């Protein structure tokens, strides 16, 4: 069964949030569509969690607006049916059992106990459901948070760093879950600071850095854009080809004799130059940047806290 897709969206308009002097989210506008997994990507401290808090009405925006399924989150009569959320910050009383935690949330909406049991089974917490949540491992806590998020069978699912603390099996499970939620027709919005994770699950990406929107595009577009035009060429006439292709927008690097990496031309462009000049090519391969590289490239100037190592490397390079 596919949910109706009309109006099932998250829509942010010039969303801004200041905490004292610090601007955590800066004039961000985007919309998250149903039926696909939208990744919310950015370095730690870039404003992802704040944006999610604004969407849920936990914090009020300093300016701008954000709506879920056409209304402010607060205005919904049954919010848990609209949005199911997993926050990065702890959101469970440590002294209460997983079962009672979910039951208390379910009761606010008149959701039956049978649904609580269903969710406990879904996330695999049956054996520890009566244990106090304070004794849970990080992974078990994440599973409990996901059970809470899905309790109301929400049209929109929003998860902040859901794979944090999960074992490989759990990570695999989350990926399948996210895809299934999107297949059901739900709006799925997932944040991560790990590009590789997004590469495996997301169809679309919203990238932020230092509170600003950097990119809003499909995953394929993201890679294409970030890798630019880069071609790997293997030829016995490397020196000659190098001279021929070099230009104001084209650079060439060579790490190995007989191999050139051409930046700024398509494989077709390089092939045509080679053919026109009678140069033999053994290999002509367009190079795709890995998503990780693409992400680093896009957010390089927007990482709030660089490691000392990165800073030193940059200073050396300068």
């Amino acid at each position, binding site marked *: 069964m596919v949910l109706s897709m009309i109006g099932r969206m998250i829509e942010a308009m010039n969303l801004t949030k200041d905490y004292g002097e610090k601007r955590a989210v800066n004039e961000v506008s985007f919309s998250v569509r149903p039926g696909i997994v939208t990744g919310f990507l950015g370095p730690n401290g870039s404003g992802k969690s704040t944006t999610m808090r604004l969407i*849920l009405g936990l914090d009020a925006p300093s300016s701008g607006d954000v709506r879920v399924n056409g209304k402010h989150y607060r205005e919904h009569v049954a919010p848990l049916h609209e949005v199911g959320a997993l926050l990065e910050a702890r959101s469970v009383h440590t002294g*209460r059992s997983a079962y009672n935690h979910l039951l208390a949330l379910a009761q606010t909406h008149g959701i039956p106990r049978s649904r609580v049991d269903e969710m406990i089974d879904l996330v695999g917490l049956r054996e520890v459901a009566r244990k106090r949540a304070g004794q849970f491992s990080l992974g078990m806590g994440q599973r409990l948070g996901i059970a809470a998020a899905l309790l109301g069978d929400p049209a929109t699912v929003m998860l902040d760093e859901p794979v944090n603390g999960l074992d490989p099996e*759990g990570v695999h499970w989350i990926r399948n879950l996210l895809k299934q939620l999107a297949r059901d027709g739900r709006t799925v919005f997932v944040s991560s600071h790990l590009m590789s994770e997004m590469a495996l699950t997301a169809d679309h990406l919203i990238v932020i850095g230092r509170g600003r929107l950097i990119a809003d595009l499909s995953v394929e577009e993201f890679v294409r854009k970030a890798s630019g035009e880069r071609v790997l060429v293997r030829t016995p006439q490397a020196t000659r080809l190098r001279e021929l292709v070099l230009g104001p927008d084209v650079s060439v690097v060579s790490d190995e004799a007989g191999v050139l990496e051409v930046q700024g031309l398509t494989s077709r462009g390089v092939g045509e130059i080679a053919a026109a000049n009678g140069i033999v090519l053994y290999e002509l391969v367009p190079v795709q940047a890995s998503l990780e590289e693409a992400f680093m490239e896009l957010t390089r100037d927007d990482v709030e806290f660089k490691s000392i190592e990165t800073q030193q490397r940059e200073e050396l390079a300068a």
Partner: protein
Amino acid sequence: MSSATAVVSIPRLPASGRVTQARVVLSEWTKFVSLRSTRWSLGVGLLLTIAFPLIFAAVTATHWAHMSAHDRADRHPLDIALAGVNVGQLAIAVLGVLMITGEYSTGMIRSTLIAVPRRLPVLWAKLGLYAVVSLVLMLPAVLISFFASQSILAGHHILQISFGAPGVARSVIGGALYVVLVGVFALAIGSILRNTAGGIATFAGIFFVIPPLMNVLPTSWNNAISKYLPSEAGRQLFSLHHGAHSLSPLWGGLLMLGYCVAAIAVAAVLLVRRDA
């Protein structure tokens, strides 16, 4: 966790319900009874409220023969019966603070406010629930204290007072009402401060530190001001005799109620306005 590798299929929820005040009360009840700290605080509060008068009565009865006339005159049966109120209120106040600050310290408040984003129904539910629970526990506690301490004293034929005597029933029931108001006030303080230590310290400051500090003031000032303090005003609910410088039970009780309403109003405004 065997389901982790299975093909994920999310069961659908056939019917969808809206958030109502009654449902939020039920949810808060589940939260209330599913914490160990709740059971402990209420148990201790109840125990102190009943045990103190019994010990007090037993000690008075056994020492009566050796007590001076002055000491004997100092003992009043109602003071004995309600000796537990002053101690029991502390447990009720601490639990009142914890009911809300416990959610902030653990992060539970985020889950709560995501489920009930209008927020105020949560505050009303907590206040109403706590008022009813503390009344249902404290009313029998003070009645048991009264009749049990009286029966201990009756065994020695001393300090007998009738429940029907003027002001006695009002004082005994007033003792329970006072503790209920204290619990509600403490909950509102907790909601304003959102911090367990701060909430308890503020409550203790208002109820236990400021009143004795008033004694450093000139007597005329002390007499003029002290009666309006929440602790002094509230105390009139369960005092049999009222001095020249204290309010009547009715006005004292109403003033204490007024402090509660004011604290609740501040808590409500802040709950809606502040970032969670």
